[in-house]
C-alpha cells in the first residue's frame, strides 16, 4: 500500500507539473507579445512623425 501512495504522489505531481509548466509558458509568451506590441507601436509612431516632417 505504501508503494501505491508513492505512485499516487507521482501521478498528482505529474498532472500539476504539466499544468504549471503550461501556465508559465503562456505567461512568458504574454510578456513577449506585449513587449513586441509596444515596440511595433513605437516604430509606427516614429514612422508617422517622420512622414509628417
Amino acid at each position: 500500500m505504501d508503494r501505491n501512495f508513492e505512485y499516487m504522489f507521482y501521478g498528482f505531481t505529474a498532472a500539476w507539473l504539466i499544468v504549471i509548466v503550461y501556465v508559465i509558458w503562456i505567461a512568458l509568451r504574454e510578456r513577449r507579445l506585449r513587449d513586441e506590441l509596444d515596440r511595433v507601436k513605437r516604430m509606427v509612431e516614429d514612422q508617422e512623425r517622420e512622414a509628417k516632417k
Partner: protein
Amino acid sequence: MMRTKLIILFSVLAGGLLAWNLHTIFIKVPDEASQGAIFRVFYFHFPAAVTSFTCFFVAMFSGLVYLRKRDLRYDAAAAAINEVAFTFALITLITGMIWGRIIWGIWWAWDPRITSYFICLLMYFGYFMMRRAIDEPHRRARLSAVLSVLASVDIVIVWKSIEWFRTQHPGPVLEIRGGGGMAPGMEAPLFWNVLAFLMLETALILVRMRQQGIQSEIESLRRYAHAF
C-alpha cells in the same frame, strides 16, 4: 476588458473547486478496496480525458465554421482550444501510465485504447507542427480544419474502443457508460473535477485567444508600417 474579467472569474472558480475537490479526494474518499491509494489518480485521469475530448470537438466545430465563413477568428479559436486540450490530453496519458505501472506492472501496453490515444496525440502534435510550417493564414486555417476533422474521428475510436475491444485497458466504469459504477461518495468528486477542469481550460483558452488578438494587432501594425 470583459474577457479579462471572465479569465479571472473562471480561474478563481476553478481554483476554489479544485482545492475543495482535493480535500474531498484525499481526506473524505477512502482507498479503493483492491487498488489502494493509486485509484485517486482516476480523479485527474478521467476529467482530463473527458474535458480534452470536449475541447478537441469544440475546436473541430470552430474549424468547420472557419471553412464555411472563411473568418480567421474561428481558426485562431480552434488553435487556442486545441493547444489547451493537448495539454490536458498529455495529463491523461501520463497519469494513466503511472496508474498502469502499479496495477498492470508495466508503464505501457499496445492496447487499442492506449494506442489510439497515442495516435490522437501524435495527430494533434502534427497539427501544431503544420501550423508552424505554413505562413499563409488561410491555407494554414484550411489545412488545420481538415486535420482537426480527421483527428476527431480518432477521438471517437478512442472513446468507443473500450466497448469494441476488451483488452488491457479497463472497460467502462461509470454507470452512465454501462459500467458497474463507483461506490457512493466516490463518484461525485469525479464530476466536480470535470467541472473544475472545464473552467480551468476555459480560462486558459481565453488567455490564449487574447494572445492571438495581440499577435494579430502586431501583424496589422507591421503591415501598416511597411506601407510607409
